[in-house]
């Protein structure tokens, strides 16, 4: 086991360009503390998976530094790989049954047989693979394959776990169970980098979050910090008594835009969501605008923005 430095992951000014032209990662810096779940968020092509691939030593960085548990990804690749677990975004499994996939993986990571046997049973049960245990992995559904991929990483001991969109294809119940399982493992000292496009997941499971866009880190902090950082922005949710026709919705949107400080307006059926700065002082003006169009309001609430809203705001800048 490696000594535990302060940070499980330290990335400084990381650049990865393909063929010297396109920069998939462009000067990214962040760190992950020991025993922390760090969420890496971003749209498709934002550079999250490339960061993971550099950190898991699959591809070398073009410049900058990347350390995993105090080890350099360039110089200490094999030592890093002995102590990490990786759930890649793409499916990966051996052309064998579910059970055999666990046996093979455990053997590859030098896990003693009796431990493989006991962990395998626990994992098969927890990840709800009991009925499929004799099936070949390629016969499983997308969600089952992903469960197998995630479960397999817990057959061996790791210091840092990389989860690249691990819950894709899972039903909501299994997704929540897996996230709880991950949180449980973190209590045992595991550090995790977690990428997802489901922001509720990141909100639920991550201690800190980094938002990437076009290869750059555009925002970073805890979920609360991010909400506060973008917090001068508020979310006004208005429930309407009756659904409004499209033309009226358009008129409401155009009129409210004139109030000022509005970032976005969405009107769908009876729901109306308005994001903007200083909304608190503009609530009365907005209500008046809606009233002037003979639309009646059922309820109204002014909230912090959700992580979805923060994300959209961060990648828009």
């Amino acid at each position, binding site marked *: 086991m490696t000594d535990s430095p302060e940070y499980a992951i330290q990335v400084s000014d990381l650049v990865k360009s*393909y063929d010297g032209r396109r920069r*998939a990662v462009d000067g990214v810096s962040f760190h992950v503390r020991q025993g922390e779940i760090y969420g890496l968020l971003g749209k498709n*092509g934002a550079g999250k*998976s*490339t960061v993971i*691939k550099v950190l*898991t*030593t*699959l*591809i070398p960085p073009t410049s900058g530094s990347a350390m995993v548990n105090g080890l350099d990804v360039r110089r200490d690749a*094999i030592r890093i*790989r*002995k102590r*990490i677990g*990786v759930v*890649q975004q*793409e*499916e*990966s*499994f*051996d*052309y*064998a049954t579910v059970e*055999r996939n666990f*046996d*093979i993986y455990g*053997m*590859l*990571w*030098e896990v003693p047989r009796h431990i493989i046997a006991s962990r395998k049973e626990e994992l098969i049960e927890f990840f709800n693979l009991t009925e499929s245990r004799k099936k070949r*992995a*390629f016969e499983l559904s997308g969600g089952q394959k992903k469960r197998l991929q995630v479960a397999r990483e817990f057959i061996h001991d790791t210091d840092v776990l990389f989860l690249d969109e691990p819950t894709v294809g899972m039903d909501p119940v299994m997704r929540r169970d897996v996230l709880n399982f991950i949180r449980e493992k973190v209590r045992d000292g595991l550090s995790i980098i977690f990428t997802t496009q489901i922001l509720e997941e990141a909100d639920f499971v991550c201690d800190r979050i980094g938002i990437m866009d076009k290869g750059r880190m555009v925002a970073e902090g805890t979920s609360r910090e991010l909400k506060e950082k973008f917090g001068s922005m508020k979310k006004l949710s208005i429930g309407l008594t009756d659904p409004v026709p499209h033309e009226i919705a358009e008129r409401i949107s155009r009129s409210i835009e004139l109030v000022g400080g509005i970032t976005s307006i969405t009107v769908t059926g009876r729901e109306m969501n308005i994001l903007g700065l200083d909304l608190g002082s503009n609530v009365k003006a907005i209500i008046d605008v809606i009233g002037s169009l003979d639309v009646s309001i059922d309820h109204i609430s002014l909230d912090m923005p959700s992580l979805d809203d923060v994300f959209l705001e961060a990648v828009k800048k």
Partner: protein
Amino acid sequence: MKLPAFVRLTVRNVMVNTDPGTMFFMFGIPIFYLLVMGLLYQGIITGIPVNGVLIPYTTFLAPGIVGMQAFTAGNIGGGMLWADRRWGMFEQLLVGPFRRSEYLFGIIFLSVIFAIGGSLIMIILASLIKSATFSMSLLSYAYLIAALVTGTILFSSLFLIISIKARSMNAYSTITFLLFFLLDFASTAFYPITSNTPLPLRIVSAGNPLSYIVDVMRDSMVYGISYSTLFDLGIITALMAVVLPVSILLYGNVRTGIQ
């Protein structure tokens, strides 16, 4: 006991490949050739002339089937890279505690294990056939194993190259299927190549590495070791010395982690 990484990868490769389909391909088809085709043809072929003496067809065929194990095992081994890339395990293993070279060794060792195991089974089965007679010495065993190992590495390398270059599953399957027929049937495995053989087939057979492997097997098991055995083994070794570095070079350039 801690096993070296390449041994663990070899064990993994064996575990993955001991499925009924692969086992049938590795052992079932050759057993069919040996027992069904061999005995059926023996009923209509009085014998194969060797040095003025007629030898039973099964005696002639058995070394051919043993030699084919190098090709079949090489196909399974080299094809592992294709399967691992197809099922995402290549990258998964490379983010595990393994070096690229260890992955390659795992494939080559798998092929050699399958080739030796398969040959042993074929030799045992062939010696159970009443009409087939073989005379083997320590030297002939040494030649047999040397040809089997070099031949297997040669074919593993060839299939590794195909695994790397084939762009789709269809392309990979078609190329391996064509090679299977071309190399197996246009070799000396099933028929003697004589002056009566049509010239184009003689040329193909002479350029077919499997012919040289089979000739070493036949010398080792039936005719006896001579300078021509050494020459055949030299050809196989030389071919391996060319194809293996090419496959290693191409393998080294297989890119990972590209989206």
